[in-house]
């Protein structure tokens, strides 16, 4: 017996506790931050209204634009990598072969470890005399150590590598779940008809993983815009601001320069950008 009058309160009752928490913990601070973006606030003295001054300053600040460029680069490089490679990894581990459970777990390992520790280990590995360089030199591949984190041209890529490394397993599992909905019969038939493995993957499996790819693209895109811990631990935005992402720029404005109003304005812009990007992303992937 369905009663139309019931359809209002019940959903809201279900939603209430969650919305209350999110409201208090995310929405209220977010609103407060928008308010702050129109002020000059250094945490010690009360906020002073300055209108659009912060936004004007941001527009004119070359550092902001370079941080923006760095975050954009992050998107361009990391998202495609994280859309593709974990899918391939998922395909690799999606079998009942002996020992594969171990591999699945091993690939997931970087995901469970705290990003602070991961970044620390990688910083150690990237060092001029660290394991990577020592191995590269010992094997004769390079003569001089590679400046992974100290050469502005390399630093951002090196940091991106760590982000990718820690995210592989996470997205792999998303793809694994998606692979389950691909009927086994489909592939068995293909195999019997002589379709090669590579062709199977390319023409059957990957296209069927489209929905997961959409999810991964959006999620990894948002994660790319929020990169912080890796930069904080490994390079502190250097060398020469080459790894200063938007969020790090934000953090510095707030906690090193004590300019919270300005940081708030940067944050609002960051938010608008991320929102826009995700919407575009969804549109694009939804259409095809």
């Amino acid at each position: 017996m369905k009663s139309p009058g019931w359809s209002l309160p019940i959903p809201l009752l279900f939603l209430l506790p969650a919305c209350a928490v999110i409201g208090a913990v995310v929405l209220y601070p977010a609103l407060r931050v928008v308010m702050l973006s129109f002020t000059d606030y250094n945490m010690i003295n009360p906020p002073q209204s300055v209108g659009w001054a912060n936004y004007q300053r941001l527009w004119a600040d070359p550092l902001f634009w370079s941080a923006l460029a760095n975050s954009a680069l992050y998107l361009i490089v990391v998202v495609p990598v994280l859309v593709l490679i974990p899918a391939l990894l998922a395909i690799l581990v999606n079998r009942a072969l002996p020992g594969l459970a171990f591999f699945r777990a091993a690939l997931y390992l970087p995901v469970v470890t705290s990003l602070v520790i991961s970044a620390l280990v990688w910083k150690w590995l990237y060092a001029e005399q660290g394991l990577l360089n020592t191995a590269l030199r010992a094997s004769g591949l390079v003569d001089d150590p590679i400046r992974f984190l100290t050469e502005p041209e390399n630093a951002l890529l090196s940091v991106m590598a760590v982000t990718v490394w820690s995210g592989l397993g996470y997205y792999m599992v998303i793809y694994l779940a998606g692979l389950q909905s691909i009927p086994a019969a489909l592939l068995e038939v293909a195999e019997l008809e002589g379709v090669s493995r590579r062709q199977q993957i390319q023409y059957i499996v990957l296209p069927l993983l489209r929905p997961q790819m959409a999810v991964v693209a959006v999620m990894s895109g948002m994660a790319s815009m929020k990169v912080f811990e890796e930069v904080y631990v490994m390079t502190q935005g250097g060398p020469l601001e080459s790894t200063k992402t938007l969020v790090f720029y934000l953090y510095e404005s707030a906690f090193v320069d004590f300019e919270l109003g300005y940081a708030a304005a940067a944050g609002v812009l960051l938010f608008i950008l991320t929102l826009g990007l995700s919407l575009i992303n969804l549109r694009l992937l939804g259409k095809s």
Partner: protein
Amino acid sequence: MQLAPFHNDYVKGLLDNFEARHPGVRVKWVDVAWAEMERKVLASLAAGTAPDVVNLNPQFSARLAELGALENPRRHLSDQEIGAFVPAAWHANQLAGVPFALPWYLSTTIHVVRQDLLEQSGVQAPRSFDELPAVAQALRRHAQCYAWFAPMDGSLALETLVSMTGALLSPDGCRPAFEGETGRLAFEFLHRLYRQGWVPPTVLTEGHRGAVQQFLAGDVAMMPTGMQFISQMKRTNPQLHQHLRITPQWLRPGTPPNIAVMNLAVPRTARNPELAMRLAQFIANSDNQLDLVKRVPLLPSTRRSYEDPFFERSTGDDLLDEARRVSQQQVFEGAVQVPPLRHYAKLRASFVRQLQLAMTGRIGSEAAIVEISRVWVPLLGCRK
């Protein structure tokens, strides 16, 4: 800051003592790691839960003072109490002539060098910047290591420049002192160090802590530091200890050596500023500072403490003795090379950025200096 867990007894004893003299008062001590200190203090000030007495470094406390957050010690301390401090240390905690904190412990900049690498290369430790290139070349050829690490975190980059040029600001305080030929040569020199591979590329990204790491790993032969790090170096790498030597800070003739003073500040938000200032003064008085430096390799900022025979006795470690001797010598002739300034954070940021661009050769030294001046002059805010 960072006294726990090794010096729990000292602090506890100190606070118990204070509580005994001021019945009814309880003192709670919170130890914070160096790197997170600034953010913590800031957040606590914002939320009104800041401690009544804070142990800070000069740059950060100057920033707080600029925002009017710190109590002026002169309002609570007698002239006699103020006079107990080494003058340079007392003046280090003033912004535009207004004190904002009490000096606590200090150290001076000294150089620690790898004698073994120097001997291997057939050279002596340089006594000035002029002698560095020749030594650096020898080290590169015979020991395959970097000669020197120039840390650039905090005020260190500016201090390096001041040691090379003699002053930070022009005599009237309105322009940077390195605008002239001396400054240009200094920038060129640092560019040369980087280009020739005599300093490691990590000077761009690592600060003093990273420098210590590389030094102990044998990548770098010499670095500027303070005596408080000598014992830690020994603990981390005991075998290296015997090969280390201390030399005074490299200075352009006529430049006072650098003193780094840590302080005790009382935020204006303290519920009882008078009492808080009493506590600060108690911690920083001659006897207690002497007590502290007997346990921790640092120097006191109170003049009378230096008269104690403790300073004549060996600490049991030759290297530490030497470090202390050299540091001590520099105290009474020294000055804080980078005093508290208004808008310091912006001044510093602009300086380090342009210097790094010049060092890596992305812009010329002259262009870098011009850009720095362009930012500094309005911030220094003189009327002309």
